[in-house]
């Protein structure tokens, strides 16, 4: 079979099992788009801005575990997608991003829509390629998928000059089944000796705690994690990226940890004697001040990426390997061994934890006439029976969603944790809904974030995506305002966002249903009505109490035991 470069790309994607491509055409990718036109199996989703193509493919990948695929043109197409690529990179999301490039003979001549895509994306990709010969195209695509999906996953960019896809030049097509790279060999198995050593330490622990992250979700290791935690009877806290791996309603779950984590989770971290970190990377929002992090703990760390180990916090027992396999092996060692966890000590530990739990750190005013953002998220949980895919943007609403929508399943909570990209939620939901057409998909967002990719309402109409947008509208960039209130004597510099479009009319003009709710007594009815429109996008503008802040809060640079629990309080 002889194919042109454009046809090779389409065929490779099919052979790789790709079903959806998120993209936007332009000059440098016209040949590829022509090849798309001549086939039916691969579905192309036309976004309204390339940034959204990146986030949609990212959301697709997070919801399914399969790599998201993006196709954009050179120059501005490529620069617009960079935010999407960087977002995926920070959260280790597998993506393959195809960018058009000017023809090889004019590369470097400042040609129209030329930009050094490989150079611009280098710091925010797992790897990238510039295809210089047609003969290398299929191999490069295979390598890109291999690199993106194995080891610690991440985005891979392939920059393809226009002459490589010339429909007039055809070569025999062959898509390699396998790829072997001498310079890239991710670890496939954790060291059994280290695993045994870790189990021995766990059995001696008196105040143990599991601290797990996005790596558990990425490696589909929720089941072995849950089994291990329940077998040992240890408490567990999860990072923002890890929510849902161990069920949020599970009895051993302490809630999220870190800057806006629960009192019990953070206190358990501070007092623990054995910390087992799994697929987490000791991010600064989690650790707080590193010098005060888990001061008494022996630390076990399981991660696929050796460079994550002892990067921010010194680790005592490192285990490099795929999280799922390591957890399974660990469970096996636990079950086959004759030692049991220290029951007496654990009982005492749980008693202490229950005392912390009794502080009820997540309480808020439930009788308020103004709708509380926490209440809106709890209502969303109730109306969707806790089973929706929830995407979010970045800020207070993101934290409220993470805290109050108790995720019981992995891959349900989809947010930009590492990069913190406002504008992520709506396009990510497009990817999620594409992957799961029948599922309930909700975007929890703010009036500031949603405006960063609002144009995607048109994409939702074009593909009949019945996404539900829950806008927690407080008229501020809430998290910015919260920091200004706490640390800048309430000087709200440029954080007001009272000038917004009428979101109801705006949504209607895009062909969807717009609704607005202002009183807490009307919230339940409005939310139910929104979700009763099974095949329509509904944008619910929820006017919330503008003064509400996210608690608990550890100020940047403080230790886990130093939390604000409510306005005006400080706890040490």
């Amino acid at each position: 079979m002889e194919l042109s470069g454009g046809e090779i790309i389409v065929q490779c994607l099919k052979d790789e099992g790709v079903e959806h491509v998120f993209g936007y055409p332009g000059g440098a990718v016209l040949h590829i788009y022509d090849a798309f036109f001549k086939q039916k199996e691969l579905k192309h989703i036309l976004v309204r801005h390339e940034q959204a193509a990146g986030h949609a493919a990212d959301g697709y990948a997070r919801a399914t575990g399969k790599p998201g695929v993006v196709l954009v043109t050179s120059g501005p197409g490529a620069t617009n997608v960079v935010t999407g690529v960087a977002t995926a990179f920070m959260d280790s999301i597998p993506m393959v991003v195809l960018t058009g490039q000017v023809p090889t003979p004019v590369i470097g001549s400042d040609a129209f829509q030329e930009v050094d895509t490989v150079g611009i994306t280098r710091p925010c990709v797992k790897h990238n390629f510039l295809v210089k010969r047609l003969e290398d195209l299929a191999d490069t695509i295979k390598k890109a998928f291999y690199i993106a999906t194995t080891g610690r996953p991440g985005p891979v960019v392939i920059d393809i000059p226009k002459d490589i896809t010339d429909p007039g030049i055809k070569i025999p097509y062959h898509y390699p089944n396998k790829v072997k790279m001498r310079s890239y060999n991710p670890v496939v198995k954790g060291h059994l000796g280290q695993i045994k050593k870790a189990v021995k330490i766990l059995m001696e622990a008196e105040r143990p705690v599991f601290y797990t992250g996005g790596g558990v979700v990425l490696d589909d290791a929720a089941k072995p994690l849950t089994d291990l935690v329940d077998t040992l009877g240890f408490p567990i806290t999860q990072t923002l990226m890890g929510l849902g791996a161990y069920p949020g309603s599970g009895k051993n779950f302490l809630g999220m940890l870190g800057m806006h984590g629960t009192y019990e989770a953070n206190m358990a971290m501070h007092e623990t004697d054995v910390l087992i970190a799994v697929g987490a990377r000791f991010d600064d929002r989690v650790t707080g001040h590193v010098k005060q992090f888990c001061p008494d703990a022996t630390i076990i760390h399981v991660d696929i990426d050796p460079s994550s180990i002892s990067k921010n916090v010194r680790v005592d027992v490192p285990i490099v390997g795929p999280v799922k396999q390591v957890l399974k092996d660990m469970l096996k060692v636990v079950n086959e061994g004759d030692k049991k966890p220290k029951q007496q000590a654990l009982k005492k530990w749980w008693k202490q934890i229950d005392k912390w739990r009794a502080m009820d750190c997540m309480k808020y005013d439930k009788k308020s006439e103004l709708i509380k953002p926490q209440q809106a998220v709890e209502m969303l949980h109730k109306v969707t029976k806790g089973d929706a895919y929830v995407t979010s943007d970045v800020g207070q609403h993101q934290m409220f969603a993470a805290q109050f929508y108790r995720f019981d399943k992995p891959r349900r909570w989809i947010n930009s944790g590492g990069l913190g990209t406002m504008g992520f939620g709506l396009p990510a939901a497009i990817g999620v809904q594409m992957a799961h057409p029948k599922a309930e998909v909700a975007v929890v967002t703010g009036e500031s974030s949603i405006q960063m990719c609002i144009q995607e309402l048109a994409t939702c109409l074009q593909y009949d995506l019945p996404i539900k947008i829950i806008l927690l509208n407080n008229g501020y960039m809430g998290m910015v305002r919260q920091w200004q209130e706490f640390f800048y004597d309430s000087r709200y510099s440029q954080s007001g966002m009272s000038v917004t479009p009428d979101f109801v009319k705006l949504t209607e003009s895009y062909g969807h249903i717009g609704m607005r709710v202002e009183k807490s007594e009307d919230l339940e009815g409005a939310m139910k009505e929104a979700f009763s429109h099974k095949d329509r996008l509904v944008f619910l503008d929820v006017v919330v109490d503008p003064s509400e802040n996210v608690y608990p809060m550890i100020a940047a640079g403080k230790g886990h035991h130093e939390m604000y629990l409510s306005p005006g309080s400080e706890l040490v």
Partner: protein
Amino acid sequence: MRHIISILMENESGALARVANLFTARGYNIESLTVAPTEDLSLSRMTLVTSGSDEIIEQITKQLNKLVDVVKLVDLTEGGHLEREMMMIKLRAERTQREEIKRLVDIFRGKIIDVTDTSYTVELTGAASKLNAFIEAVNEELIIEVVRTGPSGIGRGPKGLSL
């Protein structure tokens, strides 16, 4: 502490940029860096001199290993190794100074490779510290130009860093 890291990497365009990028992006020190092809044309050998605490050096080697183009690397400072750097130094050499410079070059086992009425160009090879010592030994006012390659290193003993 000063470390010499020797890296075997794919001879691909952009590989050097990836290493350089890593150092700037993560704020690591880079004192010198040399790259050249090896006997296997698909591989380049890079020698990189950096400094930092043990934790930072550990991160540097891990991050370098993570780059897809890096095939293998070794921190030469961890074991016995040889280090060589080449320098070409152009010195003002007029009547009275010529004999003294010549003697100094001999002491350092260097070679004079270019001569004019008023100058010598000296080639000198050795560990970086030896080259520094030579520069300190000559009168500063005599130095016209210094060109150094940056150190290359190789481990001692019969074993080599190869595939």
